């Protein structure tokens, strides 16, 4: 009952053999070795496995791998372009938007999906955008700040001067 | 008045404080001495935990006083 499916993950094509009930999360982690996407509950409640599928943030643990056939998937490993980090990644580092780091990949992708839709979100829109992602460490405040600063950088298309001043 | 612990000779200024000391130490010898006085260490400790007031510790304090007087 196993079947071969084609996945496009981070702009790379993969051919994988999957079982019908296998989740996209397990395929990403176990078959493609993309372990950046985390498994926190496997029930769709924590958001640690958030990836972007066809432009929308989804919990990879709730998506069957077979449903992802032919879709464009982005995981945390696809955020940076070679040596250049994504502005969200830069901002999370600079503003302390993580502690243990376990929720971070999912948080980054929820944030990216939000900024792709809305390049200038209000603080409330940011809170709503990451309300499916649990973080036990930070109390969210620095995550919200990081996303806000990343949005600003992306809009201005350059590194905010105030960020430099912080260095 | 100084009161002595009948087990380890620790001195405090009241029998109540020695009773607290005995429960607080709670090792085999202190526990054993309490049980040898015809009461149960655990029962008194639990009385102290569950009842309002100080019955558990007061009971032991009275025993300590009795023992001290007869010594």
């Amino acid at each position, binding site marked *: 009952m196993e079947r071969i499916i084609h996945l496009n993950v981070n702009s790379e094509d993969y051919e994988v053999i999957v079982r019908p009930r296998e989740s996209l999360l397990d395929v990403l*982690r176990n078959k493609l070795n*993309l*372990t*950046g*996407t*985390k*498994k*926190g*509950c496997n*029930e769709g*409640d*924590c958001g*640690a496995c958030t990836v972007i599928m066809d432009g929308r943030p989804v919990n990879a643990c709730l998506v069957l791998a077979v449903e992802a056939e032919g879709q464009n998937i982005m*995981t*945390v*490993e696809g*955020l940076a372009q070679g040596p250049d*980090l994504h502005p*969200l*990644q830069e901002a*999370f*580092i*600079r*503003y*302390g938007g*993580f*502690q*243990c*780091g*376990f*929720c*971070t*990949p999912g948080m*980054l992708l929820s944030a990216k999906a939000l900024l792709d839709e809305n390049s200038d979100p209000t603080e409330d829109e*940011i*809170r*709503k955008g*990451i*309300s499916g992602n*649990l*973080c*036990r*460490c*930070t*109390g*969210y*405040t*620095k*995550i919200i700040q990081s996303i806000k600063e990343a949005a600003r950088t992306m809009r201005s298309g350059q590194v905010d001067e105030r960020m430099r001043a*912080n260095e | 008045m100084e009161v002595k612990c009948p087990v380890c000779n620790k001195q405090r200024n009241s029998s109540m404080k020695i009773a*607290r000391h005995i*429960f*607080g130490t*709670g090792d085999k010898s202190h526990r054993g001495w309490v049980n040898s006085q015809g009461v149960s260490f*655990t*029962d008194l400790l*639990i009385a*102290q*935990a*569950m009842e309002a007031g100080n019955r558990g510790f007061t009971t032991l304090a009275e025993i300590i006083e009795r023992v001290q007087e007869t010594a």
Partner: protein
Amino acid sequence: MNNDKHTVVGKRIPNVDGYEKVTGSAKYTIDMVLPNMLHGKILRSPHPHARIVRIDTRRAEQLPGVKIVLTGKDTLGRKNGIWRSYRELCDEEILCRDKVRYVGDAVATLAATQEDIAEEALSLIDVEYEILPAVFNPLDAMKEGAPEIHDGCERNMNVYRQIEWGDVEEAFEDCDHIREDTFYCSSQAHACLETHCAIASFSHDRKLTLWTSSQSPYYTQVLLSDMLGLREGDIKVLKPHTGGGFGGKLSLDSAQYCTSLLSMKLMRPVKIVLSRAEEFAATKRRTPIHYQLKLGAKRDGTLLAKKVRAITEGGAYTALGGTALYLTGFFSSFPYKYPNFQYDGFRVYTNNEATSACRGFGAPQANFVSESQVDMMAEDLGIDPVEIRRKNGMTPHHEIPDQAVIQSCGLQQCLDAIKKYIRKRGELPPNHGIGVSAYGFMSGGIFNWIDTPYAFSAAMVKINVDGKVDLFTGATDVGQGSNTTLTMICAEELGVHLEDITLHVGDTSVCPVDLGAWGSRQTLMSGNAVKMAAAEAKRQLLEVACYYLKPNIVYDLNIKDHWIHFTERPYRRVSYFDVVKDAIRGKEGNPILGYGHYTPHGKGMVSPAYSFGVQAVEVKVDTETGQVDLVHITTAHECGKVINPIGLEGQVEGASIMAAGWTLTEDMQTRDGKIINDNFRDYKLLLAEDVPKMTLLEVDTYEPEGPYGAKEAGEGLTIPTGAAIANAIYNAVGVRIKDMPITPEKVLRALEKKAAEEKDSEQFVAAASA
């Protein structure tokens, strides 16, 4: 001490693990796979209390892919506990032999080629239980005739602790006003995002390597050595990145133990990852506590005497609950100078999941009840809540008889800062209220439970020929940022850049022993060890530099920015890199090594230093629904010299929200010992949408015992939030909730009761005047 001279300490330094964590390249135990690795699972008891009559593993063993099934009979039968010198407190077999004591106790473990085969095999193990009567409430468990959970432990009394100074009974007679109140503090799941997990690899050389998510690789190594009958040196514990701890990854856990047992039989690597449901049901949790408090004061607000009785629910095993029992008593006296204090704490076994350390270690519970009661006392006496705290609050150089010596203490400045904030906030909208709570916490415990002769913290610094520095420490980063803090301390002391330092952590075979991440100990204790190791290496460089610079004494020299120079005349200098090379030449080619260690002494029984603070929480209460919304959290926290402001802010914000969740929404519900909300849908952590704006008011102090004057900033911040919320609710709508968690139903019920009482008294007044 001129703090401005620091080049690294005190700066906003991004976390040194940042690049790995934001790119997904940071490896956690859960991400790891070893060649030839098997997957393990654990069968857990569905009963809260039962005798194991028979376990038939044959059907499971016959399932293709299953390699082995083990039960308690396959172990050495030893019992685990962190108080190694108190055998009666080592009470957890982990894999039960004869009896299960809570829903989730492990009865069998197995390994298979694939995870789903392992899962299927669990259902093929037949266990015959003889169900025993169970008891879930500590007050019932102490009653005569209650089921005996541990053989020989009469009436389930696990630990009794007392603290006393002065004479409370005499002092109560001198009081003008006495309050007696009872409270209940509820439990809390640690809810680390990475569940407990381990990979064990034992091979024919009879050596065990364990990769695991742990707060103390050293404790894991020592406890495993006891349980498996291996020498410590034959066990190597590796701790990759760890997805949170919060006190929950300190005891030896079932994943660590069962993978080790399986691997020792199979000579193959075995991995076990607990499911989220297992994480809720079968790890440890915050200690729920029943309190009775008696507080006596003079008319002017002087607090003269306090008597505390606490009954803590132990659950099935001791774990670290004995320390929570002691600390909840000790911190019931904080942060005030009670001349007379008495504490009696009773820890009682029940047939629930064991309770243990959880961020704050008993102090948040103590503070919820104590700071609620101080507000009630202030109201009774007609005194401003900030003023009653100021009048009784601790000050520097305070000594608690037979317990503790407090050196630095900025509580009074914190009270000033909060008072100013409240005044500035001015008139509040209807149904809004601000509540305050004052607190203090330890910078690491002077507790050697594990009974180790090693120093509590140690570090090694190695300087190599290119000037790069290797820093080895057993300190454990579980997200709180100790890797960054310790790298900063090393760079500051050695006068090098952060990029010059390569950190080596999380490997018991290489790193010097450190007790790990608990009790907010690492900034002070591991920080002191790192500072000493760096200073020792630095001294060796300065000795060589003397030949070039010819100072009167070596202490005239310093290192900064890769130059070794005269402190007073920095332009007279020699290159750090040149001196490193010469120093190595002079040491017969050996690298420069510095070793540092720290064990607190002469500082009482509890901790070498204490941080203090005051928090003000503003809430809005919906009187229709009972819903409590957080509006603003303002914290004045003093933790000595701040090593890294980004790290400090992250701790304040994260701890406040974890504590707010405990207070308001995290309601761990059980039925017949089974946790029924064992998932994040029904067990509600606060979400980004629930979190208010937070402000940190800085208060500067300097702690002589800490590195560069630093103290803790980890768990302490979970302490004040519960009471501040309860006090804020009272100030908003006039109802006092003494029973956690403060759910909308409880608020609503209290509002209804208050309305009914007001109506009664109106009728009474009306009738009387008619």
